[in-house]
């Protein structure tokens, strides 16, 4: 059996990669995908911990996280579409009307 540490490390790695993607990509959609990476990393952590603890809670939470991710995706993509309609761009660094 793989040690929990490795699983957690994998989870952390994916999480951090997600963070990195969010920071460095200009495209809002890709930034959003990075967030999905982070969520999945967390899901992995939940499942791994739940599995080691022997309780179902972890898996149930993953179920909820997926739902939330779906909801966020719906709303987030709608927002992206609406901003694309008004601004014709999906680049994060173009969205700086509001500042200072």
């Amino acid at each position, binding site marked *: 059996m793989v040690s929990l540490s490795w699983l957690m490390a994998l989870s952390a*790695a994916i999480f951090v990669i997600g963070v990195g993607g969010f920071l460095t990509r200009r495209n809002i*959609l890709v930034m959003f995908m990075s967030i*999905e990476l982070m969520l999945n990393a967390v899901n992995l952590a939940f499942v791994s911990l739940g599995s080691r603890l022997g309780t179902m809670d972890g898996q149930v939470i993953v*179920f909820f996280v997926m739902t939330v991710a779906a909801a966020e*995706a719906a709303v987030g993509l709608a927002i992206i579409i609406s901003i694309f309609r008004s601004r014709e761009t999906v680049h994060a660094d173009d969205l700086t009307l509001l500042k200072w």
Partner: protein
Amino acid sequence: MPAGLFWFLAALSILAALGVVLQRNPVHCLLALVLTLLAIAVLFIGQDAIVVGFLQAIVYAGAVMVLFLFVIWLLNLPVESGPTGHLALKLFGTLAVAALLAELAVFLVPSRLQLKFSSAHAAGYGSIDALSQTLFSEYLIAFEVTSVLLLVAVIGAVALARRTTQAELQERKEASARVEKAA
């Protein structure tokens, strides 16, 4: 879960995740993301989270990602044209990310990673039966809330993406005029 499988999936998921972050074409990114999700789904199943694993594959990697794909096509997004103007952020962002990873690594060494208790999996652990038993008893409220949440998401999505009204067009004109003036 055999160790070999784990290592393979771990490597795959990390590579795929890096693919999400590093590729220029959003569609390629999305494909890499799907790959990551699938690898993770297998990891779930490998840890007796069978239902969740399949849900991950079907709902997440399937349905949700298709949504992304639609949007990418809808917006007809171009390939990201290189790292313009973002070099500093990329450099320092990467450094910061590395720092975070290093910090997390210190926390996650085995000697520090002690669970409160650890028990063997009961019969039917991870099955749809077990999952729904928990879901509809202890997590009844949470489950109901998800329905509300999804409703909110639907309303929100509709509200944002519905057809433009005449009044809104007028307002838009005013707003863009103002933006120009401000610029």
